[in-house]
C-alpha cells in the first residue's frame, strides 16, 4: 500500500531563519507531488507541484522554493522565513491518470 510521510509535525522558527520541510511517498513510483499552504481558517493554496524528478511548477511567487531530488521526495525550502510564512503546510501525491490525491498529516509552521 502507499503511504506519505511528512515531517516535522510542528515547527517554530524565528524570522530570517531557513526552512526545510520534507515529504516522502512510499509504495508508488513517478507520482505527481504537491505542496499546499493553509492559513488559519482559510482554504488550501497550491504552492508547488511536480510531475517528475527536477520538474517544479510554481503557482504563487513568494519566499519559498521546492525541489524534487528523488522520485518520491519533495522538499519545501526557504532561505529566510517571514512572519507571513506561518501556516499549515501539506504535502500530497497523486498517481498519474488518477483523480484522487492523498495528503500527508501536515506541518504547522509558526514564524516568530
Amino acid at each position, binding site marked *: 500500500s502507499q503511504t506519505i510521510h511528512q515531517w516535522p509535525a510542528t515547527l517554530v522558527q524565528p524570522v530570517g531563519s531557513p526552512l526545510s520541510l520534507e515529504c516522502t511517498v512510499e509504495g508508488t513510483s513517478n507520482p*505527481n507531488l*504537491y505542496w*499546499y499552504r493553509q492559513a488559519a481558517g*482559510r*482554504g*488550501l493554496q*497550491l504552492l508547488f*507541484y511536480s*510531475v517528475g524528478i527536477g520538474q517544479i*511548477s510554481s*503557482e504563487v511567487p513568494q519566499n519559498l522554493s521546492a525541489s524534487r531530488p528523488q522520485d518520491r521526495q519533495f522538499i519545501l525550502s526557504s532561505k529566510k522565513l517571514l512572519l507571513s510564512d506561518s501556516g*499549515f503546510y*501539506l504535502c*500530497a501525491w*497523486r498517481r*498519474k*491518470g*488518477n*483523480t*484522487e*490525491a*492523498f*495528503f*500527508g*498529516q*501536515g506541518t*504547522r509552521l509558526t514564524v516568530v
Partner: protein
Amino acid sequence: LAKTTQPISMDSYEGQEVNITCSHNNIATNDYITWYQQFPSQGPRFIIQGYKTKVTNEVASLFIPADRKSSTLSLPRVSLSDTAVYYCLVVTGNTDKLIFGTGTRLQVFP
C-alpha cells in the same frame, strides 16, 4: 481548469441530512467531480467522485444533473464528527494541477 463555487459555511443538527451544492459551469467533457473532507489540523481526505447521475458510498452520496454544471454532496444523518470543511474539485486524470477552493465549513450541533 473548471472553477468551482460552494457556500462558505453551513450549519446543521445531528441526525439531519446535509446537502452541499457546488457549481462548476465550465466543466469539460473529461472532467470528474471529486469531493474531499478536511478535519482541523489534518490533510484533506478524498470521500467521493462522480461523472454523472448518482454515486453512493459508505460516507456520502453525490448527485450530478444531466448538464453536469453543478453537483450536490449529500451526507445522511450527520453526527458531530461530520463537522469539517468539504471541498469540491473538478479534475481529469490528465490534470497536473489540483486547485482547491475555499470549501464549505459544515458545523454540526447537538
